């Protein structure tokens, strides 16, 4: 029995060596997030490869699917020949190399001035039909709060990309217009939800605004961008899943038309293509990126 095992191991090893010897040039290992990921949606939509948003079969052979931003970072860190994509926020601590996109460096400034194109919007949508007057007023105040420098700076500090203009009021400036903020709202529960990508920003905003608006109770149940419209103004708006305020990490579709004044953009999120630290590639174009992901380009040597 033992002899047979050893023989089998040897045989398998030899076969691998034979297969292995054929590779001369290093193949590009393509890493992607799973199909439920908003980052994946944003990435493939922007590089003009929207077929790949929910479909793995169009991707290059030998692609590797990871199911989190963290998984992507670990994977690319471990693989010298990898290419992947993460949210710009986590690039700095990730210890991987972020690539310029169409010659533009992935920085916040470049995102804001519109030159860095690999981005997606984070949007909000609120309910349009509240029976409880207090809730309606808090939601209204929250929308006003989103325009203040207070909220914007919080969004920025949580990794969202947005700009604070000099005209932006501070909450103290406009507080008087929203008398609800001076009442004790600690009995009121405001439900937040929607995209998981926006969850961190949403939580920071709700915590800050609760302090500024009578300590209302905030509940977060983030289940994905698809539920943002559905649970505020769509089919689930009056059920147990209903939300007061929801976020989406993509633009709303035509089928998700919100009532005027109840939705909008809160910030931009940049996606950055990443490679291993030792890779000497610095820049990648939209066209090359698509070719890499659809398998037209398979070797690192083929990238000009």
């Amino acid at each position, binding site marked *: 029995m*033992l002899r047979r095992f050893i023989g089998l191991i040897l045989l398998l090893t030899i076969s691998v060596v034979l297969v292995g010897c054929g590779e001369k040039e290093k193949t590009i290992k393509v890493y992607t997030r799973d199909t439920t990921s908003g980052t994946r949606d944003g990435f493939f939509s922007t590089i003009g490869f929207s077929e790949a948003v929910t479909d793995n*079969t169009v991707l290059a052979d030998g692609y590797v699917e990871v199911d989190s931003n963290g998984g992507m970072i670990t*994977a690319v860190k471990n693989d010298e020949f990898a290419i992947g994509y993460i949210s710009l926020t986590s690039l700095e601590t990730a210890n991987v190399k972020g690539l310029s996109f169409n010659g533009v460096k992935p920085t916040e400034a470049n995102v804001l001035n519109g030159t860095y194109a690999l981005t997606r919007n984070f949007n909000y949508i609120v309910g349009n039909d509240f029976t409880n007057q207090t809730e309606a007023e808090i939601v209204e105040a929250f929308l006003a709060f989103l325009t203040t420098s207070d909220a914007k700076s919080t969004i920025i500090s949580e990794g969202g990309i947005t700009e604070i203009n000099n005209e932006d009021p501070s909450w103290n400036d406009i507080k008087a217009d929203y008398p609800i903020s001076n009442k004790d709202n600690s009995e009121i529960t405001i439900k937040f939800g929607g995209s998981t990508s926006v969850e961190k920003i949403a939580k920071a905003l709700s915590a800050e605004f609760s302090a500024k608006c009578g300590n209302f109770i905030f509940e977060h149940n983030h289940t994905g961008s698809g539920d943002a419209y559905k649970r505020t103004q769509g089919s689930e708006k009056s059920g147990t899943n209903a939300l007061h305020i929801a976020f989406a990490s993509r633009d709303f579709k035509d089928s998700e038309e919100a009532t005027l004044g109840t939705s909008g953009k809160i910030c931009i999120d940049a996606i950055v293509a990443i490679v291993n630290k030792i890779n000497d590639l610095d820049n990648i174009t939209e066209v090359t990126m698509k070719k890499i992901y659809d398998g037209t380009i398979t070797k690192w040597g083929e990238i000009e």
Partner: protein
Amino acid sequence: MPILLNWMDKLHKNKQFERKILTDNIVKNILFVVTILCASVIVFIVLFILLRGMSPFINGYEINGKIYTVDIFKFIFGTTWFKTPNLYGVGFIIVNTVYVVSLTLILAVPISVLTALFITRIAPDKVGKSISYIIELLASIPSIIYGLFGLGVITTVVKNLSNFFGYQSAGGISTLSSAIVLAIMIIPTITMIASTSIKAVSQDLINASLALGASPTQTNFKMVLKSARSGIFSGIILGVGRALGEATAISMVAGNSGNGPTFNFFDTTRTLTTTMLLGLKETTGLDYDIRFSVGIVLIVIIIGSNILLNFFNRKLEK
């Protein structure tokens, strides 16, 4: 008749004894019901997973405004896990799973059996005991820690190994890494059972072998292992079960290739369990329920392999 008189004296106690018998019966029935409940757990589990897992093939799911069901034939024989909106295939995943588990066995079985032999027959008593204790400790380590170890250490080793062979792996995330992690996890299981069955080989047989002029080593390898083979095989059966069902550890090193099957050691793979865990957080509807269908496949494979291996084991015993 004094005895009879004595009887009459104690007659009033009769009721107390009747009560005791009644209590016994009540207790027995309660325990019986509880036992039946425990035994029916598996029925409920299989039933519910079957119900939910069959749903993708029967009920329609709304995706982007249209209603879809999953083609069961394509599901079972598919070589692509997912193509939007409703194509799911586990055929290659089944092959991958079986392949990874076979590879695991090739790694784990020799090591486990030899370790068991060492513990029970070769090593001095104290050394044997301490090693068997170390093996027991290994068995108690949670799988998530094996996953962490796999991600931090084994992938690096495998990556270097593949570079050595001139093959480019995905940072060591591969079939081989998965097999190694699984092997580490099932070595304790097989070793513990194998050593019990080796211990059970009767000293008479061993003495007989020695008396025939075989060296202790020859006796160990030829006679002892042969006599204990049925026990060793049951250990292997248990190990296969554990390897097939392991999820978290392997999902950290498998890589989740989307199509296949893959037979190269250094390529990424996808097993039934990693498929069930992947992307679980955000998913709903069809994509969620299909995991139950994969669960059905996993149950069938586990029960099937168990029956098959036990059948072989019975043959081996003969």
